[in-house]
């Protein structure tokens, strides 16, 4: 059986758990309140790779920002290892769509940045760990280069290495490959899976690209239009890491269609 909606389990086993999540914020310049996320349930176990897909503006990035601690929640609960999320912190590292590498720091110094701020490790060890990650993402030769000397794909790798350097409990990725050309993107997706396997990472990945979600995730959570909630979770049956050949299989195409059906059904409204 290739796919199927998973039911959300009761509390206890979850690493990241959202229950009946409600996120509202005041609309800029008025008294109205925007409801971005409502009645949203989501659960990640340790080591899970979950992709959030949904129509643009559906609130999937808001959920990610709430986990990161940038956005306060209005109702329901959102817990990491049983604790409510306080504010931003290095236990939840974010990979933004724009790499935002500090241009005055070398690749290595950018990767060390998070460790430097958290002071979690002595300088030497921080540097060693950063170097190991730079090697892991395939940039050993460019460790001393500055971001301006790198291609977009290389910058995306640094971005990923920087987030992994702080050894976060959960890795949050907000369309990190959206601005990258299609071929490089596919390479980076494979690399991401390889790196996640090597570091046993738990990841929450936001994208609007169905193929990307199907290729990366253990489960794809499809969001409804705003106010966003998870309308269906689709389990992806293949072991990670996955080979590029998978993309050309019949089963992959079927899974893609299944996700698309849920997604576009939801977009068109009640027919789904």
């Amino acid at each position, binding site marked *: 059986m290739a796919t199927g909606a998973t039911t959300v389990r009761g509390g206890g086993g979850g690493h990241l758990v959202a229950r009946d999540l409600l996120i509202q914020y005041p609309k800029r310049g008025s008294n109205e309140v925007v409801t971005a996320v409502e009645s949203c349930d989501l659960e990640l176990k340790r080591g899970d790779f979950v992709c959030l897909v949904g129509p643009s503006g559906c609130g999937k990035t808001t959920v990610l920002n709430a986990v*990161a601690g*940038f956005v306060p929640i209005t109702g329901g609960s959102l817990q990491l290892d049983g604790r409510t999320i306080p*504010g*931003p*912190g*290095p236990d939840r*590292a*974010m990979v*933004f769509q*724009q790499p*935002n590498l*500090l*241009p*005055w*720091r070398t690749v*290595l110094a950018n990767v060390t*940045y*998070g460790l*430097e*701020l*958290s002071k979690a490790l002595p300088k030497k060890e921080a*540097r*060693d*760990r950063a*170097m*190991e990650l730079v*090697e892991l993402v395939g940039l*050993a*030769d*460019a*460790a*001393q*280069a*500055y*971001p*301006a*000397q*790198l291609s977009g794909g290389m910058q995306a790798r640094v971005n990923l290495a*920087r987030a992994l350097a*702080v050894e976060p409990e959960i890795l949050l990725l907000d369309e990190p490959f959206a601005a990258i050309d299609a071929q490089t993107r596919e390479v980076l997706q494979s690399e991401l899976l390889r790196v996640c396997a090597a570091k046993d990472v738990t990841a929450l990945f936001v994208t609007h690209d169905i193929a990307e979600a199907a290729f990366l995730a253990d489960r794809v959570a499809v969001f409804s239009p705003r106010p966003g909630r998870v309308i269906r979770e689709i389990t992806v049956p293949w072991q990670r890491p996955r080979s590029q050949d998978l993309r050309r299989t019949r089963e992959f195409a079927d899974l893609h269609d299944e996700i698309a059906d849920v997604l576009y059904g939801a977009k068109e409204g009640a027919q789904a």
Partner: protein
Amino acid sequence: MSASTVDVKPAVRVEVKGRRQAKWLSPKYLVGTAAVVVAIAAWQIAVTLELKPKLVLPGPLDVLHQAVTMFRDGGFWADMGASAQELLIGLFFAVIVGLPVGLLIGWYKGVDWALSPFITFLYATPRIAMTPLIIVWFGFGIAPKGIIVFLMAVFPIVINTAQGMHALEQGFVRVAQCFGASDLQLFRTVALPGTVPFIAGGLRLAVGQALIGVYVAELSGAQHGVGLMMNTAAQQYQSSKIFVGLFVFAVTGVVLTALLRRLEARFASWRPASH
């Protein structure tokens, strides 16, 4: 894994955008040098043809001759010493005061709001017109001249620094916050390095303003000074002396600006190569 044996050489695979070539052989410098040679030749020709009396327009050789005479004379060294003192005192305090004030304005909105009326007012005023007031308050020594230089130089530093802080890339701020950076860490690792190019630009503007300050300050009564010397020479129709003073100012400006550029290059080697 030999993570400790980090290769410090520039990455081989990385494509370096700025091409290196022998600096002095580049077309830019050849054309520039040729243009200067042509200009001096034209000057000499104009003098040889006696388009103006020599008293009014001395030739380059006359000026050179005059310069040699003056550099052998202790009086001119006293002039240059006095002017240098005024310049350095003024610039020193402009940096000491201008940098922190600019950073505070850029970092705290409240400071910005409190100081902006004064800065707007003083920046719009031709500050050199405050010279008489400074003289009345502080007399004719070196100190009031340093104050005038300070007033000229401090504003470009303050304004550029504050502007650099305001132009901070919000994406970088987000990254720092995401890693749980404190305000101090955010300032030290993002705001300050991001502002360095703006500070360097402000310092270069400040040098030009400071030189104006030195010249004008000396017109309102001084014992020594290059500006004073030029003014006295003008009254005696010694045009070649004026030229020497002019070149002293020019060379000072060029040298200081070049030093600042080198400093800037040191702190901003990360910037993509341009021009």
